[in-house]
């Protein structure tokens, strides 16, 4: 355990010089200057060194287990997450840990005379920092993935609005390709819309759907069937000439679903089914 004691001593004694060199190195090598203030960087570096020292003191085994190491990892997770949001590149984020190697090596080299012990300590430092660096990288990627997932969800929600056109008449303008996952969202928001607006007729407008193949048609029919189970009738509108041709060529059977070429035609039919009509005002 002598190399652990050696490392602890080094970390305690040369903390200030390690910190100085480390920050200088980070500022020099970093490609994202200006994304973070030096004071903030100094603050992060100081905090990391202190949790790192505690962890080494407690248990410097290469397994990195125990509450002190958990603390180090929590710190790095938070750091990676905030950097991912600030727009740092992945290598810049990992550099935070990896750039500690050089100043730490120098400090170890300066204090250790025995060459055998020096090799041991350097190996320990490398192994510890490599693991932490990889962990930083993973945490960075995780938080980026969370951002992507959230955006995907937002995109899904954005692209499936349910609007009430008239009393009891809903419109669902679909834009973009319909895959199974989107169909699920579309179906859910339509059915919830039916309940919320007490709708009896729903118009699904597919003007913005680029292609209708057998799978998309199947998804549309599923949506229509689910709406029917809730007591609402569906009209599919916005069938463009090319889409009409594809549907017939593919031999897709739309069953007894009413289809209209435009949304206005569909609205006219829906009003008629509800016993209403839009008429021009009589002139005086």
């Amino acid at each position, binding site marked *: 355990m002598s190399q652990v004691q050696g490392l602890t001593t080094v970390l305690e004694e040369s903390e200030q010089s390690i910190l100085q060199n480390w920050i200088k190195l980070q500022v020099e090598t970093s490609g994202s200057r200006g994304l973070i203030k030096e004071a903030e960087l100094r603050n992060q570096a100081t905090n990391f060194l202190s949790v790192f020292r505690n962890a080494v003191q407690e248990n410097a085994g290469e397994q990195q287990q125990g509450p002190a190491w958990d603390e180090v990892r929590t710190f790095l997770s938070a750091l990676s997450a905030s950097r991912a949001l600030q727009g740092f590149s992945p290598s810049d984020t990992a550099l935070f840990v990896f750039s500690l190697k050089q100043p730490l090596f120098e400090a170890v080299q300066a204090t250790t005379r025995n060459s055998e012990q020096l090799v041991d300590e350097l190996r320990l430092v490398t192994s510890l920092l490599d693991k932490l660096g990889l962990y930083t990288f993973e945490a960075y990627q995780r938080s980026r993935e969370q951002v992507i997932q959230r955006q995907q969800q937002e995109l899904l929600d954005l692209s499936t609005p349910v609007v009430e056109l008239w009393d009891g008449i809903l419109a669902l303008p679909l834009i973009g390709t319909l895959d199974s996952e989107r169909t699920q969202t579309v179906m*859910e928001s339509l*059915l919830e819309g039916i*309940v919320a607006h*007490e709708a009896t007729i729903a118009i699904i407008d597919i003007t913005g759907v680029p292609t209708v193949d057998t799978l998309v048609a199947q998804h549309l029919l*599923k949506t229509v069937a*689910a709406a029917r*189970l*809730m*007591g609402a009738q569906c009209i599919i509108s916005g069938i463009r000439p090319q889409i009409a041709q594809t549907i017939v060529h593919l031999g897709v059977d739309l069953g007894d679903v009413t289809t209209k070429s435009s949304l206005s035609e569909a609205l006219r039919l829906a009003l008629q089914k509800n016993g209403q009509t839009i008429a021009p005002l009589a002139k005086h």
Partner: protein
Amino acid sequence: MERIPILQLQQFLLVTIQVELHDQLAITLQDDLTEKLSTSRAKGVLIDISALDIVDSFIGRTLAHIASMARIMDAATVLVGMRPAVAITLVELGMSLKGIDTALNVDKGMALLTELSKSAESR
């Protein structure tokens, strides 16, 4: 034994399922309802499933059977109050209950039933 009450409202039968509908209960309901249809000579059946969280393929099929039985006994069936999640599940199971008329709630279901029985009378 546990039973689902069948109420007569003028010329219609009203079935409100308020408990979890397990298989045996569904079969009992089917028996009771056909019995009641023949004695009451009702013109329509309204089944409210707004309290049902789960409808599996068996219950779905039983509901479809009840509707078919009612039809050949000269009564229309309207299923009301299905929840969105249940509707999605049934469609995913491939059961779109083609033969049954549906409505959003009891109010709309009653209106539909009245209309259906009127058009049946005029035939």
